[in-house]
Structure formats: C-alpha cells, structure tokens
C-alpha cells in the first residue's frame, strides 16, 4: 500500500502541474488569413493594393445592374421579360428587388474602399520615410480614391437621391441617416476638386487609372447637372490630352481592342479573367471575376434591345447607327466586318452592337472583357455645347456640336441641310433641340439618356410612352402607356434591407411612392 501512496503523491503533483500549465495565456490564436489594418500602408504595393480595391466594386456594379438600370428606365431600350430587366423597363420596381440592393451595396462597398485610402492619409504620410513610396505616390493614390468615391456617390445620388454620406473611415460602419441630395452633390464636387489637384495627367500615370482630365471632365459634368455653368465651363477647359477619334476608329470607343484610346476619359476595367464559377457569380467583389455579362445579356440574349425610338432618331445617312446597333442581315460585324449578322446562337436584331464582344469576335459570351466607358470625350464636347448654350454663347455651342458632326462625317448644324432635316440652330431652343438629338444618337446606349431627360424635365413627356414600334403613332390611343410617374420614378426605392438594418432610417425615409 505504501507503493500506491507514492504513486498517489506523484500523480497529485503531476495534476497540480497540469493545472498550472493549462493557463489561459495559451488560449489566444493568431489570424493568419488576413492583414491587420493597424499595420498597413507600409509599402508601395500595399498602397497600390488599397487603391486597386477602390476600383473593384465598379466591376461588380457593371457586371449587370450598372448598365441595366439607366438603360432600362430610359426610352432607348425595350426589355425582354428577364427579371433582371423587365421590372425596370416597366417601372414596376419595389424596395425588395435584389438587384436594387446589389446596386446600392456595391456602391457603398466602393465608398468604403475609398474611405480606407482617404482616411489613412496620415498613416501613409508618416510611413514614407524609409519606405519605397513617396508623397507623390500618396497624392496619386488619394486622387484616385477621391475621384472614385465621387463616382460611387454619383451613381448613388442619380438612382436614389439623398443617401447616407459616409466620408470618415472611423465611423464608416456606423449607421447614418440619409443626407439630402444637395449634400451628396456638394460632397461629390468637393471630392472631385480634391482629385483634380492630386491626380496626374493622362500619360503621366498608369493606363487605366484615374487621370487629372477624367477628374475635370467629371467635375464639369456634375457642375452642368447642378446648373453651375461658369464652373462647368472652367472645369471642361482643363480637359486636355484627349480628342475625338476619326470615324474609321469610332468602333474603338466600344470594343475591347480599342480600350483606353484618346477619346476615353475613364473606364471600368474588365479583362475576361474568371477565378472559379462561384467567384464569377459572387457579385461581391471578392475573388477574381474580371468580366461583365453585358455582351451575353444585351447582344446574345437581347434582354435589352434598342428601341424603335432610338433607331428612328438616327438620320438616314448617319454612319454611327451601324456602329451602335445591329438590326438585321444587312449588318456585318467583327474585325474587318467579316461576319454577317446575326451572330451564332444570338436571338437576332435589333440588338446593341455597342460594348459587345462582336467588334472583335464572332460570338458573345458571359465572360466579356469589354471595359465600361464611364465617359467619352464626345460627351465632354456635347456637354461643353450645352454649357455654352446656357451661358448664352450660341455660336460656340454650335461649334462644339459641329465637332461631333464633323467627326461623324455628317452635315453641320447651321447649314441648309440640317435646317431642312428639322434641326435649325437659330435660337437657344433650337440649339437645345439639336443638343438633345445629338446626345441621343451619339451617346445612345451609354447610360446617359435617363439622367439627361430628368435634368431637362423631359422625362414625363418621353418616358410615359412605350418607345417601341408605336411610340410616335399619331393616334394616341394606339400608343402604349408606360407606368412612368415623375414624382415617383425619378429615383428608385431605397433597398428594404438597408431600411431594416439601418437604425437611423425608418419606413418614413423611403422615397415617396414606394
């Protein structure tokens, strides 16, 4: 028994030792899957990676809804019944549609990524010493982030009106109430002003990144939309290093091979690369999905056909029509116009040629690498025309318009030909009509028409009638009425999940009519 007692003592000691050994200091673990934001912005590649992620959410946005919303709610498009298109084309949207939530979420995620860069300026500046990046690199990073944040907010304010204004990285995840649309616009202007002072001109920065000219062009556009014409005029005057492509190269404005040409102000990049099938469909920005479904959606499946109205808006001799829209067997497409429409497996015309893969390939696919053209220099020129018109400089306005006409090889405004075609430009109103016409055809299918109609107060008149075959039927009873109500449908409903989850928002904060 003595022996056993010894063992007992031994085990008692062992057990006591184990009790001590199992102290809680051993418990915490290290997260090796992610970086700590407290120790970041320490190298050039880290600064760049943070900026890159600020571009990322636009890829999610324009995988589908960034195109679909402004197109489907305009009069340029007739949607198929596909649920990604039809409710918007019919103004039958509501707060629980998942695509509206997707649009909202992508924009705010983008704002979050921009805030991460902007809010860490002090940390970056403090880290320059002994590091491989300079204050100029930081300026460039900040300039991009300010521009992108303004662009995300532009996308938000156009679709929803006032939205929560998240500009401070420290409080970004806290709930905030809706700001007014004016406050959002003011922030956009402030951000773009910052961007113009921080970014580098085209050619002095990596292709594909935000340039000083892109910032000025966007600033001018927002000023124009805010009816601040002198400011707009000044901003546009800083848009240099860009030009209109000759008509022979016009297709470069919409094709994959023509990306980042001299007419392009800013693009959302896609390169066709896909990680996994799950990543491709994730629509969160997480993972490799450098593709847009637009080619397949618009051109292959014809879920958003060009309306009869937009086709009829083209003058008969306008070469831009066949470069924008494929209608029937008379159309050819592809490199060197080698193929006859319709493309294999495609539904048939009319479909959008613009931004499809068909400029470069025989087929369309879901994995399109065609970049989104956020703005073209042609738009800048047309906006300059509008600014000048509003400043009373009618002649200058017509000159700007004629830059566009000259490039297209079309008769100039102010000539007898154009007067005969119903577009005289003798008065301000006539110039306005010419601008409306020229923007419609030059920029068709480029996500500007709905916003133009709203700011021109033409939305009720143009959007209440279905833009298909009978839109201009002289017998009003034969015109199909669309469910458009300008007091409701100028903005979309705030996504219901935002209203539910945001403690600073309640049902009363929803846009009227939803």
């Amino acid at each position, binding site marked *: 028994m003595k022996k*056993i007692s010894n063992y007992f003592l031994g*085990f*008692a000691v062992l*057990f006591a030792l184990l*009790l001590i050994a*199992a102290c*809680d200091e*051993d*418990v*915490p*673990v*290290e997260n*090796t*899957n*992610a*970086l700590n934001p407290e120790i*970041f912005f320490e190298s050039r590649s*880290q600064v760049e*990676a943070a900026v*890159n*992620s*600020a*571009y*990322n959410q636009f890829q999610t946005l324009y995988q589908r809804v960034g195109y679909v919303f402004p197109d489907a709610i305009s009069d340029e498009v007739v949607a198929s019944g596909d*649920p990604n298109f039809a409710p918007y084309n019919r103004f*039958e949207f509501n707060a*629980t549609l*998942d695509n509206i939530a997707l649009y909202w*979420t992508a924009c*705010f995620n983008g*704002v*979050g990524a921009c805030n991460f860069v902007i809010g860490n300026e002090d940390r970056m500046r403090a880290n320059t010493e002994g590091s491989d990046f300079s204050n100029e690199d930081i300026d460039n990073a900040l300039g991009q982030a300010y521009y992108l944040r303004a662009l995300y907010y532009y996308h938000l304010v156009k679709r929803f009106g006032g939205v*929560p204004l*998240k500009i401070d990285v420290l409080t970004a*995840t806290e709930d905030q109430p809706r700001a007014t649309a004016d406050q959002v616009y003011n922030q956009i202007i402030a951000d773009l002003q910052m961007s113009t002072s921080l970014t580098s001109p085209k050619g002095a920065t*990596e*292709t*594909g*990144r935000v340039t000083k000219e892109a910032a000025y062009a966007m600033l001018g556009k927002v000023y124009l939309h805010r009816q601040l014409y002198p400011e707009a005029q000044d901003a546009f005057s800083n848009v240099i290093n860009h030009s209109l492509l000759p008509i022979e190269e016009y297709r470069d404005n919409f094709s994959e091979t023509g990306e980042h040409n001299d007419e392009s102000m800013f693009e959302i990049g896609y*390169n066709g*690369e896909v*990680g*996994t099938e799950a990543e491709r469909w994730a629509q*969160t*920005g*997480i*993972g*490799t999905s*450098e593709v847009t479904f637009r080619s397949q959606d618009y051109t292959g499946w014809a879920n958003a056909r060009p309306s009869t109205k937009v086709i009829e808006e083209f003058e008969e001799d306008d070469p831009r029509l066949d470069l924008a829209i494929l209608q029937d067997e008379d159309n050819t497409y592809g490199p060197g116009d080698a193929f006859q429409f319709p493309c294999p*497996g495609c*539904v048939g015309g009319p479909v959008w040629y613009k931004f499809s893969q068909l400029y470069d390939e025989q087929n369309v*696919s879901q994995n399109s*690498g065609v970049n989104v053209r956020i703005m073209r220099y042609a738009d800048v020129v047309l906006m300059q025309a509008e600014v000048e018109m509003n400043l009373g400089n009618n002649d200058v306005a017509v000159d700007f318009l004629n830059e566009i006409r000259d490039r297209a090889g079309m008769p100039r405004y102010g000539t007898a030909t154009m007067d005969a075609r119903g577009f005289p430009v003798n008065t301000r109103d006539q110039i306005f009509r010419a601008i409306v016409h020229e923007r419609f055809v030059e920029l068709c299918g480029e996500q500007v028409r709905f916003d133009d109609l709203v700011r021109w107060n033409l939305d009720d008149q143009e959007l209440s009638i279905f833009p298909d075959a009978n839109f201009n039927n002289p017998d009003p009873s034969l015109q199909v009425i669309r469910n458009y109500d300008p007091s409701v449908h100028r903005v979309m*409903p705030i996504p219901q*999940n935002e209203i*539910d*989850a945001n*403690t600073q928002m309640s*049902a009363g904060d929803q846009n009227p*009519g939803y």
Partner: protein
Amino acid sequence: MKLKNLCIVFFLTIAGQIIGQTVTGTVTSNGGPLPGANVTVKNQSKGVVTNFDGNYTLDNISNGDVIVYSFVGFISKEVSYSGQKEINVFLDEDLVGLDEIVIVTYGTQRNTPVSVVKSEDLSEFPTADLGQALQGRAAGVTVTNGGSPGSQTLVQIRGVNTFGDGTPLYVVDGVFTNSINSLDLSSVEKVDILKDAASLAVYGSRGTNGVVLITTKKGKAGKTSFTVQASAGIQEFNRRYDLMNTSQYIQFLREINALVGQNGGPDDPIERINDNPLFDGNGIDTDWQDAYFRQAPLYNVNGNINGGSEKARFNIGFSRLSQDGVYIDTGFNRSTLNINADASIADWVDIGQTLALAHSETILPERFEGRDPLWNIIGQAPYVPVIDQNGLFGGTASGDLNDARNQIRVQETNDNLSRFSSIIGSLYATFKLAEGLTFRTQFGLNANLNLFDAQNRAFEEGGGRFENPINFITKNRQTVSQTIFTNTLAFDKTYGKHSVNASAVLEQTKIKLESASISDNNTVSSSIPEVFSPNARATSFSVPENLNSVLFLGGYEFDKRYSVSASGRRDTSSRFAPENASEWFFSGALGWNVTNESFFNVDWINNLKLRASYGETGNNRTGNTVNQFLPTLGLNLPSSINNETATGISPNNAANPDIRWETQIKQNYGFNLGILNDQIQVTVDYFKNRSEDLLIPVELAASAGIPGNAQTGPSVIRNVGIVDVKGFEFTLGYNDYKGDFKWNFWANLTTAQNVVESLGVSGEPIERARLNPPFAAPLNRLAVGEAPFHFFGLVADGVFSTQEQIDAELPNNSSAAVPVQPGDVRYLDISGNGQIGLEDRAVIGDPNPDFTYSVNLRAEYKGWDFNVLLNGVQGVDAFNSNIYYLEGLDNGLNYGTRVIRRWQNPGDITDIPRFRFGSNINNEISSRYIEDASYLRLRNVTVGYNLPSNWINKSGNGLIKKLRVYVQGQNLLTLTNYTGLDPEIAPFYNALGLVDGLGIDRSAQPRPVTVLSGIQIEF
C-alpha cells in the same frame, strides 16, 4: 408503516446478520451472461458485481432479505431470499431507455433525465447518419432528415435554444466530434442523450444544444464471437406533381401570347408559337420528373469480432454501406473500421484505446446557378427532349420565354463529389490510486480530411439558349484536427449510508481547420478532371481554435433516498477577446427516491423518484472565422487595371470587440415512476431554458461599406437577444414478458414552446433565411414575442375577381407604386391604408412544432420478432417553395396543371392568380406558400425470424449460434396535408452551419419508401 412490521423487519435484519448465509447464481439476459450487473440487498449497503461469466456470490444474507438485480439498460428484478442456495436471474431489457445517472469520462452525474438508445435499436437500420437512427427514439429529441443520402440531419434537443448553430455536441468515447457520419451504427454500443442542466453543465461551453454521448462497442471477456449482418433493399419515391403536358403547355403559351402588350403580358410573343402557330411539340412529351427520379438500391454489410480475457479485451467492427438517392446520379457510400481494446496491466492500472476509421463518398443533387433542381424539373418545357436527335442535351431556345435548365444535363455535366475520411480515436489509462480514488488521463484525436471535387464540364443544350464552352474545376481540401487532452482525478466511495463522489478535471482542446482550394478553367477538354492550365489558381486559409477547461464535479447520496450533485466548469475560448474569454458555468441537482422511504408502502409502485436540476451552459460557435473581435483586411478584392488583374486589399469585416459567451440557464423538474415492478414506466419532465446573449450574425446596413453578401453587405456576429424554451417530455412504457408472446410498447411526446424574449437594445426584428433565387426577400425572421424563425409576409386570401372588388377593398390602390389588378392575389390590407405594400406583412407561420411524438411497438413470439416505429410532428408550418414553381405564373415556364384554372377574365372566381409577366407582387413572400407540414409517419416496420437452434446446428455444425432473417419497410406510410413531396423538410445549412432554414422546403430530395431484407449471423 405499522410499528409491528417495522419490528419484524428490524428483527429479521439483526437475525440475518447473526446467522449469515451465502447465495450464488448467474445473471443472464437475451445476450447471454451479463457481467458487471449489480446484485445488492435492498435497504442495505451490501452488494457485489457479477464477474465476466455473469456469476456472483453474496455472503451474509438473511432470510427475508430482498436481493435487487440491476444493470444499466435492463429492468431491475427483486427476489426475496428464503434460504435458496442458488438464484439465477434473467434480466429483461429496459426498452424505454431512460436513466437518471450518467457516467461520463469526467465522473458521475445524478438526477438527470437521460435518454438511452441501445445498439439493438440502431444496428439493423442501415443509414448514413446516426441522427436518422435516433429519430423517434427519445423524448425531447427532434430529428429532421434530408432525403439525400449523406446529407446533414438536423438534431434538435428540446427546441430552438440558439439563433446560431443549434446542433448538439457529439462525444464519441470521450472525443468531441462533428463527424458522426463516420460512425456505423453496428459499432455503437449505446447512445446517451443528455438534455438537462445537471448533465450538460458538465460540458459547459458546448452543452447548450444538448449532448449526444456515443459509446462504441468494447471487448468482453469470454469466448470470441463473430457477428455478421447484411441487408439489401430498394428505395423508391412515387409521388409526383401534376404538371401540364405538351398540348396543355402549348395551349398555355398561346394564351400568354395573346396577352402581349397588355398589362401583365410579355413584351414580345413567344417566337416558337408565334412563328409557327401549328407547333404541336413534334410528338415529344417529356416527363421531366420521371427522367429525374429513379429506383435506388441500398445495401449494407457489417461485422463485429469480440473477445478477450479478464486481462485484455478487444472489439473489431467493420462495415460497408452503399445507398443511392432517388434523384439520378446521387448517392452515398461509406466504409468503416473500428478497433477498440483495453487491458489491465496491473491491479491498479487499466489502459485502453478506441479507434474509428471511416471513409465516405457523397454526391448530392446539383443546384446549378442557385436553382433548385425541381424548379428546373417543373419548369422545363415538355416539348423539349432530354436528349435531342443530335445527341445533345435538349434545351429551350432563346425565343422560348422559358429559362429552365435541363436538370438532367445539370446533374450529368456537373460533378460535385465529396469524400470524407475521418479518424476518431483515444488512448487512455486509469490508475487506481487508493480505495475509491482514480486518476484517468485520456488523449483524444478527431482528425478528418474532406476532399471536395467539383467539375462543371463544358456543355451545350440543343435549344441553343444555354451553353458553356468552359470546363471549370474546383477542388477543396480541408482538414480538421482536434486534440483533446483530459485529465481526471475522481473519487467515488460509499461509507455506510453515505455515498460520495467528486472529480476534478482539466481539459485542453485544440482545433485547427485548414483549407486549400484550387481551381482551374479551360476550354481544351472536359475529360480531364485535374487542374493544369495557366488559369489555375489556389487559395488557402486556416482557422485555429483553443479551449481550456477546468471542471469540478461532486455528488452525495444518503441512504439511497436523498441525493445532491453540483458542478462548476470554467471555459476559456480563443473565439473571444482575452478579457471576455473565460466564463464559469455552474449546476446543481437534487433527487429524492420516495420508494426507499420507510413511510412509503404503496405496493404497486416499485420506483418513484423526484428530481430537480438547475444549471448553466454556454455556446461559443461563431463560425469558421478567426478573432472576430479584431478588424481585418481582405486580400482578395482584385481589379482589372489596364487589363491586368491587380491585387486589391480593403477592410473585409466589421469587428465586434465585445463578442462574448452565449449563456443559457436550464431548469428541469421531473419524476420517474415504475409500477408493478417496472411493467409500467412513466417519466415526466418539465424543462425551462433561457438563453441569453445569443450569438448571431446581424446584417449591418448595406451602407456600412464592407463587402460580404452581394445584396445585404456585411454581417457581424453580435450577442443579441434572449430566447425562452419551455416544454414537457412524457415517456410511457409498458411491457408484458410473460408467456411465449412477449411484447412491449413505449411512446414519447415532447412539447416545446419557443419564444424570443429580447433582441438587443433596438429590439428591431432580424431577418434571416433567404432563398434567392427565386425569392428576393427574406423568408423568416426573429422578432420579440414571437417564435424564432417564424415566417413573415403578406396574408393571401384568394384572388381578386373584379375591379369592383379591388375598389371596394383597397380604396387607395391607384396610388400604390404598382396597383393591384383583377386576377392578382388578394392580399389582406392589414395596415388599413387602402393599398397593399410591405406594411401589410404579418406573421404567417411558425416552423417550430407544437409537439412531436413517437410510438414503438415490439413483440416476440417463438422466434418471430416484430417491430413498428411511428413518429409524428404536429402543429408545424413549412414554407413550400414548390408552390412558386407550380403556380408562379410570371414567366413562360411549365407549371402544374392547376394553372389551367387560373384567373383569365373579370368575374373568374378561382384560387390561382392571373399570368403576370416578370417579378411581381403576386409572388411576394406570403401565406400562399405556407402550409401545415404536420405528419404522422410509419417510420419503420421490421419482421424478423430467428431460426431454431436445432436447424442451425444441423447445417452449421454448431458453429452458428444465431441466425436471424428479417424484412424491413421504411416510410411505408405518411399521413399529412402537406402538398410538397415530403413534409419532413430537410434542413439547409449556410456556411456557418446555421439552422435558420427551419421548415423551408427548397425542393430537397424526398425520403423514399425503402424495402429491404437482411440476415444476421452470429458465430
């Protein structure tokens, strides 16, 4: 008790002690001699345990003493001693399976209701999942199966106690595991289900959802035995939806075409019909359901070798199960090997080992592009062939207005194979340090390897609408290793009328999950299922977790009448910030055995025990993420800059620094009653659980700006809310073992009432499960004062027949964003604002059952045995998504024949709304989809026959000890009003393993009718 009787008892006791006689005997049961059975003298502390041959010798016994023979899992027997030299006792199995003492590796817990399920109930039921075998076997345990072989089974113990992962903790021979799919039931000796605080608090941090203790078969001393069992059967599911055939469907499409340009009609006519008005389907009338369902075989073989001496014992088990699914190309197979051994290497040292190895392969139904299989099956045009004349998979054309995928193509071109290999093992040593004092050390390992291989091969559907030229390959390789080091110092001794036990336990758990994912896509070939192209990419992550625990446990019993036990456990988890990481969990329990009181003299009651317990448990399940209390940067937010994919890094989580333990207070009050020497047994328990600081991922506002879910943005784990569960458990058993015809019956019934009492500071409802596509809005939610995960939506009541009816009911309809029109669903204007909108939503269903019950009947007659198990669920609602697939009427898909009676003209009175093209209010979440899913199911009927031993011995030369053949039918009959395929709604799990998909029928594979026959041979 009368004084006279007392005097006699007293006299006899004294006399007995003076005289002192000896009795010997053998205790046996159905399985032969019963070693380790207790033989005690009633109302005395005297007692012995039977040896390996079931023999015992009891000294100093007196006339009139009552000898009690008892063994866990058997009905105790009492024999009055009157001078016999030998008393042999046969113990009947206690089929009610109830216990109030559980012996865990930590020590003994008293006064706790434990449901015990024994191997005999499990082994002849071939199933992929232990949870399935537990269905209907124990009060308080609700089991919901998926019909797909190998799919996860939802086991809920006493209601919904957490908003997060509600699965119980599984402990196999002292090793925590979640891979219970790896155990073959034939290797399981018994399963104890712990439900109340007294037993669960011992498991502290992990006990909130209940604990399922699985004990595998251990070696027994004696002659080596070899048992082999084989069964084979057929599974079939014959219920079908009534869908439109080709001519009905074409007529339907013509009617849609007539609506073009009108409100609710499509914009463009369906080309196939419009361009060819005479189109009649070319004689093709595909029954897509028949193409997808099949008869599926099932077979199971297992064997067991058991033997050893008093010094060393072993048990080896093996099994092979193969089960195909009733959907084509689905199935499960598994091989297992169990090796358990233990030995006494000295008087004071026992060592032992358990090892369970398993490998399984599972192919589940494919949900390509997020679509339920039955959505495609129901919606596909019947004029499309499965395979067309060109040998391509059939498909719709672009102009068809039907975007259903060919589900046969989906299932055949996509391979999602899961292979799972697992080891659950332990090594232990027990040292007897002194009388009653033992030290036990155990090292447990649960390691598994999960290989997931997905291939989405390039395909082309004949119609030209769907094609994919790319061959996608994804391979996930995930290992989870968990080590548990448990050291227990235990004391257990009886001093006269005082019985004392105490334990101190130290336990260290380390878990590490490591995952690597590689993927590739190429257009070269679909025949190579490997990653090789320049497009290949790989990612990996790892999730470590530590848990340290200290446990003290003690109990005291006086005179077999009064008992008390208590425990305290302190857990420290790495899932919480160090200042919140540690938490104490206490419990206490009281018991009173009334029958042992001297004043108790009700003859026909042989056992009455009252008990009460109170205790705390915790939960730290926060999903597969590390250090959620710290902010992190996501590394995988790339962008295409100048056509190069550039790394993007940005914040990817919303950290919650205050995250802490979810805690629960459980109370239990109950009694066990044995009548007529346990011929009738009754157990009743009342339980009340309150869970606080519930851990749940809360959706932040999408404007928080952190990527997560595409629609809702990020979520953050928070301690939110309180949920109360209270209910009753009743178990009733009756047996009649007299004569040739032996039978028993038992039944149980559980009620559980779940109510959310609080949801944090704001108290705002929290939306939960989504099924998107097709439903954009969440289906269920949590709200204060309501049952957890109740369905929430509009209340539908028929269809608006005329504009006048709408005008009368909804005076402000015209000012609604999208006014309701005749033929639309008639929703009730709950808010009274004269129009229909989201403000009219209400609670429309509760997926938590009012009660669940089961009835088991067994009988034996001259070698024949008969077993019937019924189980039922009552007062439960389900969200039947199939109703949308059958009558959604927002696209040119095929639907159920019921749409033929849809609203088409003003004045039509019908229950099916009009065709209304595109996403619209008729298909909002509403009571249209809610159905009562109560059911009563004939789960199992088994008829067996034991061949008489003289037959066996003639042919088997005495080698074969037992030979039994049986036939079994599963799910032969289901009584329900539910219109979906199966009222037992398979749970669905998201990445966090949540149970928030309760009662949502996403057209999962139904549970088939299974008929099988089997043979059991024992050598």
